[in-house]
Every structure is written in structure tokens, then in C-alpha cells.
């Protein structure tokens, strides 16, 4: 039983990270109908920049803040100079474009930092805490805290503020939004900024637990996307729940079946899900053709 709970606890932590990636996907998709296949790279960049700056003796807190700001800026620039430029591109072109961006980021990261894996010092000590036999790293608690705070803030932003209403308006009817004086382009930029910032935070909080390297983005991206689909693209809450489920299933699979197959399990879930019910467990608000 302890073993089972241990796997569940591990799964919750990775599930939380997938949740952030999934919500990042959805935030951008809702506003601009673009699936940003470079979403995972935001996490990689966040973690790597923080590690690099701490390596240059920048104080921990400042390094973290700078890393988040930098990735946010990357997100904004990506929207402004690339995505906005090809507005009328078809879905295939947009897929190629964002895959290209993701490849570019990965290449640049490997050029700057090499292919080695780096660890970041944990926020608090390395000592794990025991909950009735289930050992949980302190950093895991930080991860969960960060995930929950991000999810809450996003929910608050979207549901309780004027800005959130504006973003929603753009996702429902861009034309009407424009007539109301809301700029869909600006809202799209904001969505990229939010995705960049949350991605960077996620990348930083997991860096101490599972080392970070130039190529962690793809896997995290696919898993986050799987969760986004499982939850129903366009439904952040459903995606978050699905992400936690995915994390737990994966952790159980790795524990009881084979650790080498851990990543394959997530993908099999994705493909299986696409076969059975592409609209997701919790239904889909908009048809995911993308780029429309």
C-alpha cells in the first residue's frame, strides 16, 4: 500500500507539471487557435536560464525572476514577430512553424549549454519528508504549491477580471471583440506571455527534482498536449484534472510495469484517447482543427 501511495505521490508531482504545460497550450489555443508545439521549450528555457545565471553567481531569487521575465519576453516576441506574421497560414503551416521554433530553441540551447544535464539547487533542503511512510521531496511540495497557485491565478484572471473577459471575448468571436475595441492581436500576445511565464516557472521548479537539459521540452510538450486533449481542448479545468490523472497513470505504469516504458505509457494513452474519443473526457468547447 505504501508503495502504491508512493507512486501516486510521484505521479501527482509530474502531473502538476503536465497541468501547467496543458494550461499553457489551452491559453494560447483559446485566443489565437494556434497550438504552440514549442510550449515544452518554455519549460526547458526557464530551467536552463535559471541554472546558467546561478552558475554566473547571480543570486537565486534574482536568477529565477530574470529567467521568468526572459522566457515571457521570448513568448511575446514569438507571437509578435513570427505567429502574427503568418496569420492566414493553414494549419499544416502553423504546425511546421511551431515545430520549427521548438527545434530552433532546442538547437540554440544545445549550442549554448551543451548536451549535459544540469541540476538546480532546491528551494529548501534536499531532505525528504515522510507522510506515513510515503517519502516526498520538499521540492515536490514546492512544485505542487507552484502548480496550484498558477492554476488558481489563471482561473481568477480568466473568470474574475475584465482582462479575462476580454481574452474570452477574443476566443469566442474575434470580430465582435474587435468591434468592442479589444485587439485580438494584443490578447494573443498576452496569451503567449502568460504561457511563457507559467512555462518558465514550471521549468524552474522541476529543475531541482528531475535534472534539466536542452531536450526535456519535447517530452513535456507532448505530455502536456496529451493532457490538454484528454481534458478536452479549450477546457483548462478538465485539462488540469486530466494532467494529474496522466501523471499518476504514468507513475504507476513505470512502477509496476517497466520504468523504461514510462514515456511510452503516456503516448499510448494519447493515441488511445485520440482513437476512442478525440473530444476528450470532459468535452471540447471548440473543434481542434487549429489555425481556423
Amino acid at each position, binding site marked *: 500500500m505504501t508503495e502504491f501511495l508512493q507512486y501516486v505521490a510521484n505521479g501527482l508531482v509530474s502531473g502538476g507539471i503536465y497541468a501547467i504545460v496543458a494550461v499553457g497550450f489551452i491559453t494560447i489555443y483559446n485566443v489565437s487557435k494556434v*497550438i504552440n*508545439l514549442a510550449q515544452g521549450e518554455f519549460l526547458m528555457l526557464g530551467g536552463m536560464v535559471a541554472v546558467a545565471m546561478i552558475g554566473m553567481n547571480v543570486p537565486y531569487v534574482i536568477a529565477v525572476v530574470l529567467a521568468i521575465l526572459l522566457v515571457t519576453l521570448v513568448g511575446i516576441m514569438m507571437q509578435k514577430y*513570427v505567429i502574427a*506574421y*503568418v496569420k492566414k*497560414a493553414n*494549419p*499544416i*503551416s*502553423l*504546425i*511546421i*512553424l511551431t*515545430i*520549427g*521554433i*521548438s*527545434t*530552433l*530553441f*532546442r*538547437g*540554440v*540551447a*544545445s*549550442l*549554448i549549454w*551543451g*548536451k549535459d544535464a544540469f541540476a538546480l539547487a532546491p528551494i529548501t533542503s534536499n531532505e525528504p519528508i515522510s507522510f506515513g511512510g510515503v517519502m516526498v521531496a520538499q521540492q515536490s511540495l514546492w512544485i505542487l504549491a507552484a502548480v496550484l497557485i498558477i492554476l488558481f491565478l489563471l482561473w481568477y484572471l480568466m473568470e474574475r477580471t475584465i482582462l479575462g473577459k476580454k481574452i474570452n471575448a477574443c476566443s469566442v468571436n474575434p470580430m465582435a471583440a474587435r468591434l468592442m475595441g479589444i485587439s485580438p492581436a494584443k490578447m494573443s500576445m498576452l496569451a503567449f506571455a502568460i504561457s511563457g511565464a507559467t512555462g518558465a516557472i514550471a521549468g524552474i521548479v522541476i529543475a531541482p527534482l528531475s535534472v534539466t537539459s*536542452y531536450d526535456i521540452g*519535447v*517530452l513535456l510538450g*507532448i505530455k502536456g*498536449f*496529451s493532457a490538454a*486533449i484528454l481534458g478536452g481542448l479549450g477546457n483548462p479545468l478538465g485539462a488540469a484534472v486530466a494532467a494529474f490523472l496522466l501523471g499518476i497513470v504514468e507513475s504507476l505504469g513505470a512502477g509496476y510495469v*517497466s520504468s*523504461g*516504458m514510462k*514515456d*511510452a505509457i503516456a*503516448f*499510448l494513452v*494519447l*493515441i488511445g484517447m*485520440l*482513437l476512442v474519443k*478525440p473530444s476528450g473526457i470532459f468535452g471540447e468547447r471548440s473543434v*481542434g*482543427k*487549429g*489555425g481556423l
Partner: protein
Amino acid sequence: MKQVIDKWGKSFGIYLILMIVFPFVMPDEYYRSVGIIIGLHAIVTIGLCLVMGLAGQISLGQAAFWGIGAYTSAVLTTKYGLSPFVGLVASAIIPGLFAFILGRAIAGLQGYYLAMATLAFGYIVQIGITEWEPVTGGANGMISIPKVTFFGDSELSMYYLIWGVVTCVLLFSLNLLHSRVGRAFRAIHKSEIAATSMGIDVRKFKLNAFVVSGMFAGISGGLYAHYMGILDPQPFGLHESIKFLTMVVIGGMTSIWGALVGTVLINFISEGLIMMSEVIPGLQGDIDTIVFGAILVLIVMFMPEGLVPRLRTLYEKSQAKKAKAKAANLQSDQRVERKATT
């Protein structure tokens, strides 16, 4: 139609000459091996072009079919002692079957779903190859895979064998392009609604394109295994899939010739980068990843139709301009004449 055949014939003639003389212009064994690799890639990208440019789908897992083909033939010949010929046939069929099953499952999917499903498939296959150690040798891979010796085992005979296959695949695809089936693919790409109303079973034809591309990739993989003699799971991952994607995109998705040109171009760029990294010591990591990523982004932004279609349009425009100028000249000449007579 005559115009089409004329144009086609010219391109094909140029292709044949270049393909045949290349090993003599570049008699170095190294360049011949580069030529062989280009041929192997071309078989994959021509198939990918059928899926992407014609049927309008996307596959981010093409290297997986390549890998399945390679391991199929390698395992059958090395572990079970079958002849490489049987192995190669199987290396077309087994990936074709995988493509059929995957394609059937995801035929109704569009855009991002398809991209992600194929990406995930690519990962699963690479993980599967690595984990299925008793058969595939796992991460250590396989050694002493028999050579294909249909025409002897020199680098040169291998070059012609592989480019012979490329030529068959190319002809097959060009025929297809200007046929009932190829037009169905292209129709689906432009408008699924219109294609359906013309009686085209969109799902079936998408699946067909996917299976053909899987088989092409598989054949190439089988040849790769026998050419290399050794195998490990490393080249059958995302990096290679993106490389294939870049080749098709830079050459022009909608053009079979584009896939071929793109393949040659990207391989030259790769070779150039390898040479550069030998000279400049600071270039660690995957410099080619940066280049491929940048190419993908820049092409979509500034030349979405790709190199070959762009050049073709430019050529046609200049021809039209010439014809116009000629006509204008003629007209002014006539006017002068008329003036002279009056």
C-alpha cells in the same frame, strides 16, 4: 497534357544524367557514401511528400517507419538467416502494416491531433526498439547485418542499387501525381468538402497515402540497415523525423521534385555544417538542429510554397514576360510598317 509531359521529361532527363554521373564526378568513396545516404533519404521524403503535399496531412514520425523497416530486415536476415531480398520485401510490408493500423486509427484526425499522434508514435517506436532488447539488441544495437550483394558489394554498386530504387519510387510517385488517385489526394488537400462531393472517400485516400509513405520509408530503412551493417535506435527519433520534414518543406511540399531537391540541399547543408564544426571548435551540440529549425520557420514565413514551386513560378513569369515583350515588339513593328505604307 503535352506541356506537362514535356516539362516532366526534361526534369527527368536532367535527373538521370546527374544521378548517373555523380559518382564519377566525385570519385571519392566518402562522397559516394554521401550520395547513398541522400538516396536513402530521398526515398523517405518522396513518400512524405505524398502524405504532406498531396494529401495535406502531416507526419512527424516518419523516422519511425524508417526504423521499423531497418530493424525488420536486419532482424530477419541476421537472426533468422533469411536472404536480404526477403528482408527488404518484409521491410516494406511491416512498416506498411504499422502505417495502416496507425493511419486507420487516426485517419479522422486533422491538423494538430495528427501531428501529435505521429510525434507520439515516433517516440513509442524508438522506446520500443530500445526496450525490446532480446530481438533488437536494445540500445547497443545490432552488428554484422549482411550486405546486399545484388550487383556486387562495392560502394559504387550500392550507390546504383539505391538510386535505382529512388528512380522507381520517383516514377511511381510522378505517375501517381497525374492520375486518378493523385488528383484525389490533391483534391482532398484543397477542399475536403468538394472532394467528397465528387465521390472521393477522403478517409480511405488519406489512409492510402499514409500507408504508401510508410512503405517507402520502410524500404529505405531496410536498405539503410544492409548498407550500414550495424544498427542502433539513435537515428530513428525525432531529430531525423524533423530532418525529413525540413527536406520536404524547403523543397516545396506540393512537388515531388521539391522533395528530391530538398533532400539534396539539406544533406549538403549537413555536410557543410560537419566541415564547419571541424574548423570552428566552439560549435558543440546540434548545430544542424538550429539550422533545420530556422529553415522551417523562415520557409513558412517567407516562402510557404517552397523552393521548387517558387522557382517554377518565377520561370513561368519570366517566360510570360518574354512572350509579352516579343508580342509588343511585333506589334510596334507592324505599326511602323503600316505607317511606312501609308
